């Protein structure tokens, strides 16, 4: 999915790109990307304001006289008023606030950190794959303090959001709320900071490319 990659001016930031925020506002991204973006917006007022700008652009496009206008069914208004008279749908129960998982993520986990169903993937690292549509995959990663993720490259786009602790790679230091957007050009070995075990949400739209033999062999089984 080329949408999300701004490869002409790849800048290292700890925030989301315009292309991602516009895709989120337009509703054009895979569910897993929407999830990591909604989670970052819950922690970052600057990107939330930029996302609101892209939603405003959507409103302007919708309102444009030149936009698509379709004739309604003859009884459209009456039918709508009849549905209104049936009353509102029952509201969904709001997720409880959790100190580590913002609400959109807690809704996918089905609770707070204690509800995550971790699976060991070796070297102390654990992961939990979240249920999203198949175009892209969202997984939570648990990396013990000081431990490294296997060195890997990317065949598509990977967005990593830190929820607890911090990690470091060649491009920078990422703490709670920070995102790293990695693309095909990036090869990295994220290492968790020594202070605290690191929990991240990582989203990919294509398999990672591992540079060491062992993780490459394990890849089909770990689904990463």
């Amino acid at each position, binding site marked *: 999915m080329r949408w999300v990659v701004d490869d002409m001016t790849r800048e290292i930031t700890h925030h989301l790109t315009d292309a991602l925020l516009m895709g989120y506002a*337009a509703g*054009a991204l895979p569910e897993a990307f929407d999830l990591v973006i909604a*989670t970052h917006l819950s922690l970052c007022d600057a990107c*939330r304001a930029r996302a609101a700008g892209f939603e405003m652009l959507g*409103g302007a496009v919708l309102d444009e006289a030149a936009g698509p*206008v379709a004739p309604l069914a003859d009884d459209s208004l009456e039918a709508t*008023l009849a549905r209104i008279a049936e009353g509102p749908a029952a509201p969904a129960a709001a997720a409880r606030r959790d100190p580590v998982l913002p609400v959109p993520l807690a809704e996918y986990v089905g609770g707070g950190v204690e509800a995550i169903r971790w699976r060991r993937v070796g070297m102390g690292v654990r992961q939990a794959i979240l249920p999203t549509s198949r175009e892209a995959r969202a997984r939570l990663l648990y990396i013990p303090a000081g431990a490294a993720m296997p060195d890997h490259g990317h065949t598509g786009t990977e967005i990593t959001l830190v929820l607890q602790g911090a990690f470091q790679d060649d491009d920078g230091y990422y703490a709670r709320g920070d995102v790293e957007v990695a693309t095909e050009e990036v090869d990295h070995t994220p290492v968790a900071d020594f202070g605290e075990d690191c929990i991240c949400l990582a989203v990919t739209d294509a398999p990672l490319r591992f540079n060491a033999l062992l993780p490459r062999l394990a890849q089909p089984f770990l689904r990463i």
Partner: protein
Amino acid sequence: MTAGERGDAEQGASWVRQVRLVADAQDRAAFAELFRHFGPRVKGYLLRSGADGAMAEECMQEVMVTLWHKAHLFDPSRASVATWIFTIARNKRIDVIRRQRRPEPEELDWGPEAGPDQADILALQQDSARLGDALRQLPEKQRTLIEKAYFGDLSHSEIAAETGLPLGTIKSRIRLALEKLRHAMGS
């Protein structure tokens, strides 16, 4: 502010009043006015995003039902009515046409304030008007691409296939359009 922007801002403020009338008085006339303006636009949006006629009509009605029931939650200091309706229609499209869940950010805690500030509401409506005007001023090709990004549910590569333009041109055109819009918004 240009005359066109002033007119748009007034129209925006008038939509805010209609939504308030729906929220506070279940006013059917105000709802009908919103329906006549936004209903055909929402339906057009859904048609262009891949719904067939019956589904677009059905989803449009659901969007307008949601507008009625959630009118009391609309905050005119954070969005114009058009933007608010766009987000409801977008989420309906993701739910019904793409069959995906739509994760939304955590609600902000606004603290003890009673309600949105009048100055904030006015500023927001003026920003929306300026953006609408800037969108109209964009060169045709750039505007079409922005519309496709929002309406057509197209990726950059699909846009390229449809228009026969190479990918780099598309990306720089969208970026150019965004830069122009940002410049027009004075940031």
